[in-house]
């Protein structure tokens, strides 16, 4: 029993943090917002140069062969910088789907291509009403009546829908499933799609942790600089307690997300419960962080000018993706209430038996 990250994992996350601090700036995000696609192939290539697109790709396919435990830290770091690129959907969720499919020439080539930074993959999953980043995807993996299909962009019509978060690029797809597009029957696809949902929700939960820390940092800095009544506003107890509450929610969301990552990596029979818990805990921390950070910033927090909006909007938008709050609450209740899972002390790590 040892519930800490090892030095290699911490070192990897800290390397990625230094990289993103330089490359993934709020200025760059605003530039991307202003472009038609909102995406940058050059940035994606930079991610690949850091190995970020290769994390889950097996070593046999030129990847790093790392697990969801590493992703918990990496996605958290990525969230801290509010990266708009579909890194998690491609490098965690899509790679997870591909790893679950039988070896095939196209599959092996695509895995290598993802690792090398040559392909983004979009996923149409019933958990999400819209498809993220379909416009920049080389390949789309799409669920249709439970079966899994593979499409090329020219095989589907896309209609953009606008998110409150300009970092998000969402689409409605129109396409025809055929025998030629089908990768897996509903029966074969079910475990793959369930795993995709867990991967997606974990990726979002970890990003929300990073975003929580980011808006908290912003609020702390602002409260130290802004003076009213002759003192920094951060010296007033009312504001201290707003931010202490965020810190507390955040502290108790983190281990929940890490535990979910471990559960996926080790195929824990109750991983769905742990993942839903992680998504709910991280969402709750992040929503509180956004609300209180905005309150601390006062009217400045309500401006387009302040970078705080980049992070708050990312929190609001991501909160509903890969299973919204009501979905995860219902899934958690299915286990705790309907299935009457054994809980209580001595069940911290073993809910199954």
């Amino acid at each position, binding site marked *: 029993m040892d519930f800490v990250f090892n030095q290699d994992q911490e070192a990897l996350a800290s390397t990625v943090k230094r990289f993103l601090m330089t490359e993934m700036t709020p200025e760059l995000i605003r530039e991307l917002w202003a472009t038609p696609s909102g995406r940058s192939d050059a940035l994606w290539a930079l991610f690949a140069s850091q190995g970020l697109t290769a994390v889950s790709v097996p070593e046999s396919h030129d990847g790093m062969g790392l697990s969801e435990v590493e992703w918990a830290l990496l996605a958290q770091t990525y969230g801290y910088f509010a990266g708009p690129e579909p890194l998690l959907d491609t490098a965690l969720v899509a790679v997870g789907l591909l790893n679950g499919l039988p070896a095939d020439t196209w599959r092996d080539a695509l895995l290598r291509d993802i690792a090398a930074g040559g392909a983004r993959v979009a996923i149409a999953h019933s958990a999400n009403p819209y498809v993220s980043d379909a416009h920049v995807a080389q390949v789309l993996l799409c669920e249709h009546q439970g079966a899994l299909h593979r499409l090329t962009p020219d095989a589907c019509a896309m209609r953009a829908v606008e998110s409150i978060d300009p970092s998000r690029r969402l689409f409605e797809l129109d396409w025809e499933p055929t025998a030629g597009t089908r990768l897996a029957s509903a029966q074969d696809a079910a475990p793959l799609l369930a795993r995709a949902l867990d991967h997606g929700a974990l990726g979002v939960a970890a990003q929300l942790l990073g975003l929580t820390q980011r808006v908290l940092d912003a609020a702390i800095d602002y409260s130290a600089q802004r003076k009213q009544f002759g003192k920094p506003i*951060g010296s007033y107890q009312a504001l201290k307690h707003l931010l202490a509450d965020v810190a507390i929610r955040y502290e108790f969301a983190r281990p929940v997300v*890490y535990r979910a990552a471990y559960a996926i990596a080790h195929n824990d029979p109750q991983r769905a419960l742990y993942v839903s818990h992680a998504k709910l805990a991280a969402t709750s921390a992040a929503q509180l962080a956004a609300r209180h950070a905005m309150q601390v910033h006062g009217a400045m927090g309500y401006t387009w000018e302040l970078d705080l909006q980049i992070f708050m909007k990312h929190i609001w938008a991501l909160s509903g993706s890969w299973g919204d709050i009501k979905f995860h609450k219902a899934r958690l209740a299915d286990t705790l209430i309907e299935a009457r899972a054994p809980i209580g002390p001595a069940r911290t790590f073993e809910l199954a038996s």
Partner: protein
Amino acid sequence: MNLEYTPAQCAFRAEIRAWLAEHVPREPLLSFDTEQGFAEHRAWERTLHSGRWSMVTWPRELGGRGCDLIEWLIFEEEYWRADAPMRVNQNGIFLLGPTLMDFGTDAQKTRFLPAMAAGEHVWAQAWSEPNAGSDMAAIRASAIRQGDEYILNGQKIWSTRAVWADWLFGLFRSDPQSVRHHGLSFLMVPLSTPGITVRPIRQLNGHTGFAEIFFDDVRVPVDNRLAGEGLGWQVAMATAGFERGLMLRSPARFQRTAEALRDLYLAHRLDADSDPTLRDRVCGAWMDAQAYALSTYATASRLQKGGHIGAESSTNKVFWSELDLRMHHTALEILGARSEIVPRTTGQHAALGNWLDGFLFAQAGPIYAGTNEIQRNIVAERMLGMPRS
């Protein structure tokens, strides 16, 4: 990261589970805030000691098992799973014990620790005074040195367990010229010493869980001072760290309550579902109790690798005390119109059917061991680096 228990940890769990199955009293004990209940709980401490289970984290030579923090968590999980009695000597076990091991002389350790482990000495806390609550550095009770003795005068209040305990520990001003946190000394005093008057305070629940203590020229040997004269504040801060940090309220306690709450909800489901938010709150109780458990495992893992406990002492305290309140509120809402009825059970906590008793006790959670307002200040100032007011 490895979230599997080792074979040794599994064997340890099996051992304590088997022992508890054999020894935990079938009938719940009376509240330890009654005279008879106190005696019953002291007897239970002796039973625990006879199995060498009273102080599992203490070294073997002091009657413990030298358990590390993960084993301590396993012990606590099994203890709460078995609905074993509350620990009447919590002040000694988790507060004074570790402090004595850090600051005590060898003679003091030999004198106090084995008797504490055996339930022979049950300890009361004596921190607060009428004008020194959250502002503990405002302590005025004095200890004036006369040769090999201190002469104690003044008043302590909210002294937990003081009505029937044997000894107290607390802070006294040994330098009359001193102010604030300087010039304080940490003293250990038998409650039977002449000049001490204990006046029980009747609590919300009718019991006398704490007391006022009046000191009137009470003579205490210098040997009863822990650490140097005037260094009491540092010792007390270390004690407060243990208290809030990890050991005061183990996660197992709240996991047991969350489990009992889920089962209460299921038993009353037809009625309870007329308020659709109740199911959500029951699930929320599990989530937060689980989060506290996971966080404690993470902290324990970090401490075992040489880390230190910092402001997470304060995040813990706020989190579990407010969780405890939410859980008991939810339970009483499920019970609805029946919730005001005092149960006939003598059991002291929710899992034993006494939600009302637990509800009353939960009211105190955000107040004792440093109010949650003070804890939030600590989080903001020490963890987040916000400016002091």
